[in-house]
């Protein structure tokens, strides 16, 4: 037995250790999210957007299975310091479902969902306090007096996927955005705005939008052929994507020495994202993730052949106004996790090792406990199982209304007599021959002894059955001295001339009734 235990424990430890020593990238993959290489073109629309107070806002892609909210939040780097812990989800625009979500529960997202991590009340996004990695404000700098110059926005129904961007505040009006998208500002009336803690509403074309607003376009009005070319391709390999992005940005910058693009290029290679003259629309989310990588591994050193890399095709940003340069491309969920794992390095390896050892110890303890319990008497085991199996089913029976409801007559408390007078049966009862019907309620608790006034007691010798005495309130009512109490409860029967036993001392009607019943029985 001891040998078996040691073999079992050793094999378990070996298996878990082996799995723990696998590359960190494999550890962070979840069953619902596959690697980039597995994503096919047909799945490219399984996109989700997250903006607001998260580390890496942007558009994320998941393979066939729809991820859970916590997965998306996790891949977006979790809440930033300025988050209040609530998430707002916009699905299908204002005609669909919107909801706020408090952390602590998880549920499955649906394709095209836009998640907004709501910021703390009174916290303004300040571009000067933008985190280099995430591009959003830090809580420590939240109190800066300088007004925020950039806002985060998400677009729904503009294309077949949500779009997330960051733009300068002065350009953040519905009319200006429509203009940049090649549409008339007059269409502002068709664009609903969902901003923080507000119901969907229309705004005027010139009204400045709050940060983290979601613009829901009317897909019937938007002409997609007029839109600038939006990034639609899914880059399947993270490393190649980095190379390509770096290449393209460098190339484009070198080809078109536009001031705004120069700003963008600087942001892409990791310089502070906002300079003195930033672009009206700024790069958001996924780029910032890549920014970190580019910062840690300079393009020229870590990727020497990056400029020559031609596939996969990077995001094309042709025909795009300079202000709209910053519309981001989808970022696949595994990339974000991989990025996290890489960033962890040795520290994450040590953490995983420690975790693995803890799991091993726990598993070993559990196995020992299980084996010990098996050796205990069978009776205890059965009873504990019964308790475990019965409790949930009992509750389910009530929840699913599987038990019949049986109405019980009301039990009137005997405390009622505290307030009412005790029944004066003697005064109202004229017929001394027949039994008094029992009251319609029965006291459950013991009837307290009642002091009967002397004048209310019937004279000795009068025939009041024990039944009457019992119902009248207690033993002290018993005044029938001729019969024993138990005997008085049994009806005394005498045989009549027909040989049928009939109760003695009952009225004519009762006797007739009993005879009829007796005849019926026979």
């Amino acid at each position, binding site marked *: 037995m001891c040998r078996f235990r040691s073999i079992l424990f050793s094999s378990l430890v070996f298996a878990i250790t082996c799995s723990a020593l696998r590359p960190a990238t494999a550890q962070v993959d979840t069953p619902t999210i596959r690697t980039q290489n597995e994503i096919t073109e047909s799945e490219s629309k399984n996109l989700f957007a997250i903006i607001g107070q998260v580390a890496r806002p942007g558009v994320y892609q998941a393979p066939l299975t729809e991820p859970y909210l916590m997965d998306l939040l996790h891949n977006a780097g979790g809440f930033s310091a300025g988050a209040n812990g609530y998430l707002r989800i916009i699905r299908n625009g204002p005609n669909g479902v919107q*909801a706020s979500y408090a952390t602590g*529960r998880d*549920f499955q997202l649906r394709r095209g969902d836009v998640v907004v991590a709501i910021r703390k009340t009174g916290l303004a996004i300040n571009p000067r306090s933008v985190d280099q990695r995430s591009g959003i404000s830090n809580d420590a700098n939240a109190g800066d007096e300088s007004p925020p110059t950039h806002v985060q926005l998400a677009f729904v129904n503009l294309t077949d996927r949500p779009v997330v961007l960051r733009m300068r505040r002065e350009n953040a009006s519905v009319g200006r955005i429509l203009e940049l998208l090649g549409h008339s500002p007059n269409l502002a009336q068709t664009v609903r705005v969902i901003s923080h803690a507000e119901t969907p509403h229309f705004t005027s074309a010139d009204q400045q939008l709050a940060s983290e607003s979601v613009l829901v376009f009317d897909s019937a009005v938007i002409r997609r052929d007029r839109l600038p070319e939006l990034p639609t391709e899914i880059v399947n390999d993270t490393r190649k994507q980095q190379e390509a992005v770096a290449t393209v940005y460098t190339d484009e910058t070198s080809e078109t020495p536009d001031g705004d693009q120069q700003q963008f290029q600087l942001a892409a290679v990791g310089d502070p994202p906002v300079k003195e003259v930033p672009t009206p629309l700024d790069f958001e989310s996924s780029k910032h993730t890549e920014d970190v990588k580019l910062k840690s591994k300079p393009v020229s050193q870590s990727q020497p052949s990056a400029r020559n890399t031609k596939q996969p095709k990077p995001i094309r940003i042709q025909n795009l106004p300079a202000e709209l340069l910053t519309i981001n491309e989808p970022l696949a969920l595994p990339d974000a996790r991989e990025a996290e794992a890489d960033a962890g390095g040795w520290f994450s390896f040590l953490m995983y090792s420690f975790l693995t050892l803890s799991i091993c110890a726990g598993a070993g303890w559990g196995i020992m406990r299980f084996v010990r319990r098996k050796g205990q008497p069978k009776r205890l085991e059965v009873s504990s199982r019964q308790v475990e199996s019965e409790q949930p089913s009992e509750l389910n029976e009530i929840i699913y209304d599987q038990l019949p409801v049986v109405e019980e007559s009301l039990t009137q408390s005997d405390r009622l007599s505290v307030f009412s007078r005790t029944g004066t049966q003697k005064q*109202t009862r004229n017929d001394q021959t027949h039994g008094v019907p029992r009251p319609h309620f029965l006291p459950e608790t013991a009837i307290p002894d009642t002091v009967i006034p002397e004048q209310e007691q019937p004279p000795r010798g009068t025939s009041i059955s024990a039944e009457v005495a019992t119902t009248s309130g207690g033993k002290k009512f018993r005044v029938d001295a001729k019969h024993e109490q138990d005997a008085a409860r049994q009806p005394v029967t005498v045989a009549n001339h027909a040989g049928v036993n009939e109760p003695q001392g009952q009225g004519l009607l009762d006797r007739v009734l009993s005879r009829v019943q007796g005849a019926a029985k026979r």
Partner: protein
Amino acid sequence: MSIALDIGSSHMRSLRRQRFRLIGRSCRSLFTELADRESHREILNRLGVPHLEINGQLIVPGDSADGIAEFFRVPTTQAILNDRAVKSSDVGREVIVELVNALLPTPGHANEICCFTAGGIPGDTDGSRNEVNQLVAQTIRRCGYQPLGIGGATAVALAELGDQALTGVGITIGAAHCETTLMCHGVELARSSVARGGNWIDEQLAERQALHFWDQSGNRHLDFRSARDWKESNVGSILSPTSVEESQLAALYRELVDDVLAAVRDAFTNAPHAFDALQPVGVVCAGGTASRPGFREIMLDELRKNPFPFGISPVQIIGAWEYSVARGCLIRATLEEETISRRAA
């Protein structure tokens, strides 16, 4: 085992589990007052009607009150009105205490959970913020149970949304007030209450149709009972009224539904924790007033005009609503007991 207590303004009910069935007790939560005369007492005694003697009045509580009131031509009084025990005197309070005592059997063990409907105030789990809740909680404690208060609509949601992961909207259209709750995975997120219900409809009907009666002292009273009898006897749909009275009734129902839904929208919009379910959620509606033919269509019509801020699946009117609230309370009590026993283990 735990027990549930539904403290309604028209009925009080208790429900408990006994092996493979649920045992329910029910009584009307009203009373009638008679002058303390020898003749009255004698009649009550002969009829075997339990009664109280308070401040020179004979008080008949519970189910017998209606019959006695009709017999003596005196009005009946609700024990609970707008979440308050009627009258500041002891009468209403004593009636509530007596009825609760009658509904609760002897507890099986110490600190058995008794989950009761705490009307009016959200989160009044210990019954400390409302007069009736406080009284009921005290009485429950005196009976040997441990009180736990939840809203009536929450109880309905617990009872009827079991197949929807306890997520959705529960509405109770009661006699004195209507309650609504938005529940997510068994947790109440928002709650609203309107101090109108079936009694308000009766009152308006009696007023509009000038239904009165005079008591033995010659005082005139609104005849709610006749209005209610007419309303209950007229079982046609309120969607297609055929007379002036039926039109009045339909208008009153529509007004009531409108008020309830307006309160619901306000509550849901201003809820500190809004909703996290993205699929269309179920809406269950229980109560005597809601079981009238045509009520569902009126509610759907009003919802179409002013929708909730989230998607809903078709409204479900609970047919056997009598013990629906009590069953929800029983579920809550059972869950609480399970939690306690798990903690103890």
